[in-house]
């Protein structure tokens, strides 16, 4: 792409996190409320939340939380920008992982047991979803012949038709990344879990706002990965992503939280076996 196109894409990527991610988060809360026979907050509620948080008094448990929150935000935004620039999928994964690790280190830097336990659970979550994401990306590579996103757009069929199992694996990852039940072990959007707010317990004010915006960026990224499975028709992409997201919220509301052994065991077992089946079938064609 040309330089001007590139600059537009960079700006779009940077804006997509706060704007698009915030709207998706608002939609999430309204849908959840409707599932629970409530009315729910206005659509722009997440924006009010984040702006309010930026206006709070600056308070930290450990000054390095500031570093970690900023690093998380930087990594998440760069990974989305690279996605918009149609860069290398494996690279995007590794950059996204930088943010996740810094979030964990920031949680470790506080001595509250809730924070520490939440950090360990988050590490186990990363342990669970990182290989699965790599399998999905490798599946796309084996199909289109390249890790670059532009090759997916150059593919004249929806990728979903050839990689259906990989989409199931990706939705497993989506459940973990969006922090939805049954895999919202380390922290969740609902109030009062058994670890108070888990990973995010000791973040407050503007640093909490930064982690929230970084989470929006990650939401945009993972939903973007879902959209790669139907690139031939924009309507198809929106339907696929919308349906998947709707299902995630529905599953969130009907299931209880499970423990990390279940998540890791089932995730790896299902992830590895589904990936093997799909990839071997692809490879053998």
């Amino acid at each position, binding site marked *: 792409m040309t330089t001007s196109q590139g600059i537009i894409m960079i700006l779009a990527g940077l804006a997509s996190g706060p704007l698009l991610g915030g709207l998706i988060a608002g939609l999430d809360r309204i849908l959840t409320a409707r599932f629970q026979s409530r009315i729910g907050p206005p659509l722009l509620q997440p924006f009010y939340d984040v702006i309010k948080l930026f206006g709070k008094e600056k308070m930290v448990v450990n*000054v390095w939380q500031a570093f970690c929150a900023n690093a998380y935000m930087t990594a998440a935004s*760069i990974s989305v920008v690279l996605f918009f620039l149609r860069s290398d999928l*494996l690279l995007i994964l590794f950059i996204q992982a930088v943010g996740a690790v810094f979030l964990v280190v920031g949680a*470790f830097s506080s001595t509250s047991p809730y924070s520490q336990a939440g950090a360990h659970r988050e590490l186990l979550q*990363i342990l669970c979803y990182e290989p699965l994401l790599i399998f999905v990306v490798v599946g796309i590579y*084996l199909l289109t012949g390249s890790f670059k996103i532009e090759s997916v757009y150059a593919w004249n069929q929806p990728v979903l038709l050839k990689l259906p199992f990989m989409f199931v694996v990706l939705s497993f990852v989506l459940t973990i990344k969006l922090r939805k039940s049954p895999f919202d072990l380390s922290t969740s959007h609902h109030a009062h879990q058994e670890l108070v707010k888990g990973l995010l317990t000791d973040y407050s004010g503007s640093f909490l706002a930064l982690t929230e915006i970084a989470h929006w960026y990650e939401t945009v990224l993972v939903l973007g990965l879902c959209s790669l499975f139907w690139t031939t028709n924009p309507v198809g992409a929106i339907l696929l992503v919308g349906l998947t997201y709707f299902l995630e919220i529905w599953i969130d509301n009907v299931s209880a939280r499970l423990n990390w052994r279940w998540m890791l065991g089932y995730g790896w077992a299902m992830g590895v076996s589904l990936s093997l089946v799909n990839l071997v079938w692809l490879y053998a064609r």
Partner: protein
Amino acid sequence: MKELTYVLIFLPFIASLTCFFKIPSQVRSFMILTTGCILIVSSLLLIPYVPFAFTPQILFGLGVHDLIRVPDFILMFAILYFGFKHRSLLVIVPAVLQIVLVVWFEIIISSGMIEGQQMFRSVTQAFYCDNLSLIMVLIISIIGSIICFQAIPYMKNHEEHLKLSTSKQPRFFFVMLFFLGVMNGLVLSNDMIVIHFFLAATTLCSFLLIGHDGNKEAIRNSVRALWMNNLGCLAFTVAMMMIYHNLGSTDVQQIIRTPPGTGLSFLALALLCFASFTKSAQFPMQSWLIGAMVAPTPVSALLHSSTMVKVGVYLVLRLAPAMHGSFLSQCIALFGAFTFLAAAGLAVGQSNGKKVLAYSTISNLGLIFACAGLNTPESITAAILLIIFHAITKALLFLCVGTIEQHIESRDIEDMRGLYSKMPLTALITVMGVVMMIMPPFGLLLGKWMAMEAAARNIFVIILAAIGSALTAMYWARWAGTLMSDPFAGKFKLEKQPVVTWAALLSLCAGAGILSIAVPWLYTGLFTPSMSLNYVPPYTLNDGVLENSYGIFAAFPLCLIAVMGFLQSILAVRGATKARICAPYLSGIQTAEHRVFMGPMNQLVKAEAGNYYLSNIFGEKKLTIWINLAAGVLLTLIVGGAL
């Protein structure tokens, strides 16, 4: 360049001899510093001459091969002597076998009787240096010297701690410096017999250094290292003889240029790979490296992470062109990926800091073997990148752990909890080292990215590598978090360390960072020429962005963004120092001391936390047996498939 080669190999020998005698410690320290600086300068001066090859003039009518004969026998008898001294049959039997075989070999060569084809006469070039050798020389000379520098205050402290009446430092530095020369000689040699000599010499040095402290545990582990490495040397000897039988030559460059399968038997290659696996402590021969962690930390840094264990990967990378496209190569890829995963899993279950570093080393070496086994231009580039960046970063981490260990007198990660409040700069450098191990845009991650993209066609390798990569992130992030786990509410007070220690740590840290930024220039300057003899350059480089047909890594732009992000985050920290410091959330019952809460009966209780080591799943005792079994099966496949 001949003079530079001789300096690089022989100056450490001379320096080590001077260390051996009783001289005042300041003189010895000055000598070590000077030797190290000369080595660093010489290795850098070597760069313009590469690639080169030469054979030295005949000395007293003897060629290199003849000169090495006597020292080789002395070495093998020395190993036999130590086998008898420690009554270890495992050492004695292979040592005797080796002596017998080498004698037989010498008889065959000198009588000129060769069965089969007589293709080559003698070694054409005794010394050969291409970019791979140059990279190894740079690593050995620069990183090795820095480690020796840091060893000076470390050993002084170590001996004060042990309350030794007579200093054992002369012996220590004698072996350390000797080892540097031996390593340089190994990577610059082209003759298998000379390589065999240097290989045995590294085995002996390792044995002497692991057993340095002289207590029961040290001696036991040093003997184990001796017999395992000696077994590898034996395999090397057998392979060397088989190759001579088939090709009539011990010249490495000539050997790898013969097409695979014709004349160069796969069994010989498999045995050489076995020797490499032993040297690099791959499963099931990993116990010597884990046990070697009882040695003083500079030993662990020099031998067991940066240099000696790299000999194995160096040998396999040298031989990779000869194995191109073979079943053996594929098996090595699978074996390497398996090691990568298994060692990462074992590291997750460890709380001993040095053992975590040891398993991490084995894990990364497994990944490098996997790259060598995949044998494509991308994977070989990845292997070279991994070697360089792993050497620097692991040396840095070992030196940090050594410094920490001397301060808090423990090497357990749980005792390093909240180290930031006691040793802020060291803790930060360690965290920086951990970040450089697992994160983009640093070179190690670049190598891992290249390796995974190269491996993606091989389903089993990529599955193993993906899970291994996730486990790697887990144990590193856990350690980094534990170090920072103390609410910091005071002024940043720099802890006291010797100047040499700060110089060593900071130079390695800065070096790794600068090299990561310089990867585009390294690629065009160092990697592509070294591979053009055997492989087509895999990536194109535009404005610091590495690209090939299926992948793209914007190395330099990401470095710039990372630097900006880092600066911005540091500014945020400075802003946060003016913020209100509050206690961590402890359900409202915290006291003014932030870790302490008001418990039952108004007793003060300290909030404790511990890390998940998941020892039920990843425990060393539980898992090692299964891993060794699986590794044994894979090794049998490698050797059996070669038959």
